[in-house]
């Protein structure tokens, strides 16, 4: 009797039909694509593997510890502690491109029709046009962007302070989460209210003094000095204030939610 390989947490169960229909993709996959794109075969097998390992007791245990770490991070978070700032000559121009897809796959937003939608525990939920957002007082932050992968760079962002914006629209500042929904494949990230209210958290409209361009989150992105890169959502289309945990693109895949630095 031939003994088949025992299922393993580290060998996702990719089914034959999935492999067959994506054989062409695999042939075309360049190293860059494999590393970057969620559209590659590797990522598809990841998804099936993720489904299997997500329900496993091991993932449950590890994610439980990750949630515990969220609590620890809340305790460690000092809302008054400012991140180090830098001088304009240290700013990297243009900034480093990073997304869960390639730069060629960016779908630019039509800035003429774009509006920032508001939802949830907010008194005035009328959408904001880009002109109105530009009219708000600008705060500039020159801070270090730190990615969970380990790289960092110094960037210069400016735009309205998020706390002032939330106050202006009558948001419930005692709510738990501020969620940002984005234009790229329903990407969503949410942060805790304490970090949203941090003095160095802004809705960035500009990078290095110029309006943010398509690859870097145009027209609006979150920029906070107290979170890892993946929490700083780009291509924002709506903001929601809520007490119900709305999930998150990276958290669904097993990354830590609080992700505070």
């Amino acid at each position: 009797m031939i003994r088949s390989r025992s299922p393993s947490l580290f060998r996702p169960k990719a089914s034959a039909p999935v492999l067959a229909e994506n054989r062409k993709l695999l042939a075309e996959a360049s190293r860059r694509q494999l590393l970057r794109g969620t559209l590659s075969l590797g990522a598809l097998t990841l998804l099936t593997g993720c489904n299997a390992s997500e329900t496993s007791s091991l993932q449950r245990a590890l994610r439980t510890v990750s949630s515990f770490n969220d609590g620890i991070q809340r305790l460690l978070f000092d809302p008054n502690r400012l991140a180090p700032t830098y001088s304009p000559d240290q700013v990297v121009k243009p900034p480093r491109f990073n997304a869960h897809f390639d730069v060629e796959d960016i779908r630019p937003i039509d800035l003429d029709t774009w509006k920032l939608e508001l939802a949830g525990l907010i008194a005035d939920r009328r959408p904001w046009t880009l002109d109105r957002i530009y009219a708000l007082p600008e705060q500039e932050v020159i801070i270090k962007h730190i990615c969970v992968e380990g790289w960092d760079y110094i960037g210069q962002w400016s735009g309205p302070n998020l706390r002032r914006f939330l106050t202006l629209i009558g948001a419930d500042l005692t709510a738990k989460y501020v969620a940002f929904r984005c234009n790229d494949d329903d990407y969503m990230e949410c942060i805790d209210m304490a970090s949203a209210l941090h003095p160095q958290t802004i809705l960035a409209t500009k990078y290095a003094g110029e309006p943010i361009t398509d690859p870097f989150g145009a027209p609006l992105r979150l920029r906070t000095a107290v979170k890892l890169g993946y929490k700083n959502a780009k291509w924002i289309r709506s903001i929601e204030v809520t007490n119900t945990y709305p999930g998150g693109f990276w958290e669904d895949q097993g990354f830590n939610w609080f992700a505070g630095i």
Partner: protein
Amino acid sequence: MNTHPLIIRISRWANAAVITVMILISRAGRACRRTAAKMRELVVRVVRWAAAVGVGVMTLISGVRRSRGKAAAKMHPLTLRILHWTNAAAMIIMIMSGWKIYNDSVLFGFLHFPEEIVLGVWAQHALQWHFAFMWVLTINGLVYLGYGLFSGRFRRLLWPIQPREVVAEVLKALTFRLEHDDLTHYNAVQKLLYVGVILVIIVQVICGLAIWKPVQFSSLVWLFYDFQGARLAHFLGMVAICLFMIVHVTLALVVPRTIFAMLTGGPQVERTPAAASPVH
């Protein structure tokens, strides 16, 4: 005193029974395809874990019985042995998951740890392991430091370290002339390496905290110049710990009595002041 005390007999037979059951279940599972694969996998996994834990615990406590009721204690008390093996397991997990995290943004272009030796299919898994077992490593480590300091073990075994002794014994070690007949005293090479790795692990935790919270712990980051400096320090600490492990495991294999000692407790040691430190 029996040759085979009761606890030993019970633990050895239970051990044999568990292993036999494990083999039978895995054979039964392979033979009967109709059995739900999930159920089989679960039972095998549970029994494997139980057997591994059971074997481990039984081995550790099998040394306890013999020392009970006697004035002398063992070279490695049970508490110490549990701390040691917990640290070993946690350290291996931290290193392997750390390698995977490193791979995501390498410090050295020529160095990419092979996927076969890292822990974690994708980055998030490695991060999950790393931030879970950091608790095991640090809490276990703090208990160990407290135990070592307050029981007098560190003073007895790791002190003093005299440079002349170190040089002489390192030379002896490199020429394979370093004797190890008496397990109950550490030679200068051992003292240096054990104290050294303890200090390295402490620094490793500090720069780990700096990487984890570069804004909240920005003063720690300053110790290592900047964020990338903290990463480099963490990497070098890993290298130092790995080098220690290579030497430590190799020497333990060369003198296998030391491995058994760390499993079952080793020889008796007198805890009187006269024997606390060798006279020079």
